[in-house]
């Protein structure tokens, strides 16, 4: 039950203000600005309680989105809503920036009226919203059309309208994963997990029903009991099954079927959507290892050596590899030597940034740097922040695999074989850090 929603620019000026409930007063807007945006200490917590009022905020570039409530709401729900809101706005007018928000404020208020009702989140699916909130001027709809929209939005399958037809039936499936890691200097994994998303784009005619198979341990085992064939295959390929800690589906997935038959079946929305989100913590294949070596030579000098090892099939290529090595605050000069890629000391970020465009599997790269330090009055020792890394690899580090994706559409004249399906795996770095 969100009481109100505010959007601020970086200066704390209110761009959008929508209050849904009476318990949120006018001063709530100012309270958030004063206590969070203009706070002397940077506020890191996304939830702030000011005078018995809770403020949930997310920041996109320079824009602050804050949801306000006086009640004890489910914080996860509020953040989910805020992220959806961001997604909806992005799909309507692209990047979220002050100018874009100012130019589209009428639209934003319209959206806000639609996706929140008395503080309760409603349908936030962009595809559906776009059918009745358009950026083009008001085009008068015929009675039939309005009736159709109403029946669709309120009907059983609110996310897909009938009568869609494509010449080519296509399906795109992306497995996007982000790997998070914290490693000790000795190479011990302190914490690691993968957050994955399955994003689909479907261009299918009619009202098709899809079945989706993945290599989840649970699903595989239950299948194994029912059919020997499957179990045999599972056994042959060794440890293909992975343990998914928790997952979450798009509203189109029939949860009852998932519960009883352990199968993921759904009638897909048209266009792009996120079918599933999941998280794994076990048996993660870490694509890179960073081996740091920091030596302080007296008070004036420091030597840093960093080795990056790639740890995946040699046939694959990692892209956009970037290693960020923090430097002490009293750095006065840096000399860097690296065999591969480009490395540069960025004073504004207090770090050496080492970029490698492409890197094959089972390779090793090395960088060595000499850091000159200035004597300071400050007796505090340097805290040595961790070395972080960014990359993109063409596989799923969790070991996630799509086993099948079948499409059934009895009414139209195409079968599963006619559908063109594309599957792609992308593994990205989340917070990928090694202590030094």
């Amino acid at each position, binding site marked *: 039950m969100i009481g109100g929603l505010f959007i601020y620019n*970086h200066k704390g000026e209110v761009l959008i203000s929508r209050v849904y409930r009476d318990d949120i007063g006018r001063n709530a807007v100012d309270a958030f600005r004063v206590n969070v945006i203009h706070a002397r200490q940077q506020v890191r917590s996304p939830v702030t309680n000011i005078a018995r009022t809770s403020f949930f905020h997310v920041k996109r570039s*320079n824009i602050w989105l804050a949801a306000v409530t006086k009640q004890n709401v489910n914080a996860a729900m509020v953040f989910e809503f805020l992220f959806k809101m961001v997604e909806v706005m992005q799909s309507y007018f692209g990047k979220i920036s002050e100018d874009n928000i100012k130019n589209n404020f009428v639209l934003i208020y319209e959206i806000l009226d639609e996706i929140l009702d008395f503080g309760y989140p409603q349908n936030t699916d962009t595809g559906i919203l776009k059918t009745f909130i358009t950026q083009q001027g008001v085009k008068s709809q015929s009675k039939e059309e309005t009736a159709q929209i109403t029946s669709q939005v309120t009907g059983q399958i609110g996310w897909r309208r009938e009568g869609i037809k494509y010449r080519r039936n296509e399906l795109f499936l992306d497995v996007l994963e982000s790997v998070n890691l914290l490693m000790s200097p000795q190479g011990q994994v302190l914490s690691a997990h993968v957050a994955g998303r399955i994003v689909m784009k479907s261009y299918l005619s009619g009202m098709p029903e899809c079945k989706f198979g993945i290599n989840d341990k649970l699903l595989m085992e239950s299948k194994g009991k029912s059919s020997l064939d499957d179990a045999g295959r599972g056994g042959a390929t060794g440890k293909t099954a992975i343990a998914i800690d928790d997952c979450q589906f798009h509203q189109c997935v029939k949860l009852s079927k998932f519960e009883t038959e352990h199968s993921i079946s759904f009638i897909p929305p048209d266009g792009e959507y996120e079918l599933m989100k999941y998280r794994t913590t076990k048996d993660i294949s870490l694509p890179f290892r960073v081996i740091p070596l920091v030596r302080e030579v007296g008070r004036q000098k420091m030597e840093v050596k960093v080795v990056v090892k790639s740890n995946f099939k040699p046939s694959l290529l990692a892209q956009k590899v970037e290693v960020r090595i923090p430097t002490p*605050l*009293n*750095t*006065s*000069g840096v000399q860097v030597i690296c065999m591969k890629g480009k490395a540069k000391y960025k*004073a*504004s*970020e*207090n770090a050496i940034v080492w970029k490698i465009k492409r890197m094959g599997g089972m390779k090793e790269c090395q960088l060595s740097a000499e850091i*000159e330090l*200035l*004597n*300071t*009055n*400050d007796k505090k020792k340097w805290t040595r922040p961790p070395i972080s890394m960014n990359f993109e690899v063409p596989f799923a580090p969790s070991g996630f695999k799509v086993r099948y994706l079948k499409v059934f559409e009895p009414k139209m004249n195409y079968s599963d074989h006619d559908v063109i399906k594309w599957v792609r795996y992308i593994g990205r770095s989340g917070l990928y850090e090694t202590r030094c």
Partner: protein
Amino acid sequence: MPAVKGDGMRGLAVFISDIRNCKSKEAEIKRINKELANIRSKFKGDKTLDGYQKKKYVCKLLFIFLLGHDIDFGHMEAVNLLSSNKYTEKQIGYLFISVLISASSDLMKLVIQCIRNDLVSRNPIHITLALQCVANIGSREMAESLSIDIPSLLVSGDTIDSVKQSAALTLLRLLRTAPELQMGEWTSRIIHLLNDQHMGVVTSAASLIEALVKKNPEEYKGCVSLAVSRLSRIVTSSYTDLQDYTYYFVPAPWLSVKLLRLLQNYPPPEDPSVRTRLTECLETILNKAQEPPKSKKVQHSNAKNAVLFEAINLIIHMDSDPNLLVRACNQLGQFLQHKETNLRYLALESMCLLATSEFSHEAVKKHQDTVITALKTERDVSVRQRAVDLLYAMCDRTNAEEIVGEMLEYLETADYSIREEMVLKVAILAEKYAVDYTWYVDVILNLIRIAGDYVSEEVWYRVIQIVINRDDVQGYAAKTVFEALQAPACHENMVKVGGYILGEFGNLIAGDPRSSPIVQFQLLHSKYHLCSPSTRGLLLSTYIKFINLFPEIKPQIQEILGSKNNMRNPDVELQQRSIEYLQLSSKATADVLATVLEEMPPFPERESSILAKLKKKKPSSVAETAIETTKEHKAMPAAQINSDGQPTLQISSPSSAGSADLLGLDIGGMSAPVDSSSSGGGGQSASDLLVDILGGPVPGGIGGGVGVGTTNGLDSSGLTVGAEENFLKFITKLNGVLYENDLLQIGVKAEYRQNLGRVGLFYGNKTSFQFTQFTTSISCPGQLSTHILYK
């Protein structure tokens, strides 16, 4: 690119404009990080930075620091800048140091050395920069290491005037951080700065000298005559003489004010010539006030009045020349009707001081009517407050009745913030100048009626003390109180006074059928249920006294005492009182009752407790009243003032007294419950409260029993704070800890059976050592068998 003129630093200007153009905080931090790294590499790298570059980077660091970021390098470079010969570089260096370097930094020694070099240099600009830096930082270390250089600069013949000015002010600053700084040999030469040609030097020297004088008046006595002659030169000069130092036609107002203040540190000069000269000065100042203003500008009158008020302050301070005092008073009288509120305020304030002087008291009294109108018509509450103060100060026996009347009348509409103080003042004045005590009683009862909430306990304690001590007003008081109580709604304080007085002297008005005993009782009881427990307790005491005074209404009172409401009151005090009084009234014979419930004996004369309260409330403004009190009354020792009506203050006792001593006392205390229990319920705790109310050693409380006597003894002779707490415990318990400190714990255990009692004392050694030569001495009141165990 921002335009940079002449000597400006382009890099700095670019950096600042970059920062101002930053869209977000993150961008700003990035820009600053970049700049810091750049400066670090510059400072680290080639050592060939020229002065300009150093200055530029130090400036940037300063700017970054002022933006709120930590700067932990560059200090050395800043100190290097100090040794530059260029003004701008030196200036930036000093600026950085005064902003960024903490007094405890290691670099301070170096900085002080640089400062000293500059101080001894011949270049006045460098000296001034160094002085400025010292004045800005003003650390103790600087005070110690520069305590010779600066005074020598100050008195040396060849320093230029502006440097002398700075030196004087810098020295003043150092003197404030390190008051122990000794001028020693410089004393006389510093004093002679008052004779300097340059008025600026004299002005700053006057400030310095005043600070020095405050510390050590004897040593600087010589400044008096110099100050007087300087003052007379200024005062007698026409406004064209001083040129730069004339401010809106007033010659050197700041210097005059400072000199007049300086003179206020000393008694009137003894040398007759100096004295006449000073008197002439003051007269001239007063004369000038009468002249028509030379300018309509507010600055002119402000400057003139500033000098005038300071002169009046000096006149009041000297308090010797009646003529001047009266003239000052007349001058202030004119200001009382001035249209400027600030002036009226100041006039009232100064007059308050004048009123305390015996010479001008009469003169002040002439303005009484004006002050009273001021009290009633002023818009600003602070001015009204001053008016109240002045009325209080000018009050004496002749005008007391009128002033008190006016104040009472005003009290009804007075501002809430000054009400309490006014109430206290009215109460004090009424008491102090009361010729006729019926008037006094009237005033106080009016006071309670008008502003009951602001009447503190002390005020009504005092009424009761006075009424009890004066036979002649008792009847009148009882009658008035009775009438006042007939109002449908009266303040609780009124009920308290009424209850007490009727309880004591109700019989004096009982003859009148309109105030017959039963009417009195019913009147009081009609208020009973509206009052707080403490007042109810007091009323219960009144009722028991009524039983003694009017035996005919005994049944009605007993009925009230025995009512469920009282017998089972959740308040223990009320419960106990009603039960004990009921028993007392039903068991004791008329004789016993008569002795127990005898009229209160007169109180010993002592200073009004209200005055003490007023002093506590406003320590500063009551100074003058204190002087007066000593004139009017015989001076009382401070301890007694405290012990008046303030039960909590009484128990400030010799906690350092030996344990054996205390023990002796405590045994005395212990006997209290024994004795009172044998006397059959003397209502000891009940009498406690009355004893408390009346404060101090009141011989023979209501109870009159032995128990009460001992309680009194205890109160007056004092217990340690902890022991007093323990004593309260013993009222309900038979054993416990009597005394405890780090070394020793003394416990007591007692048993009582009929007329026999046994008291056991336990000594606990809390240290790890053995006690040697441990002796106890016990004085036994009555038949007590003691049994002492110790280990």
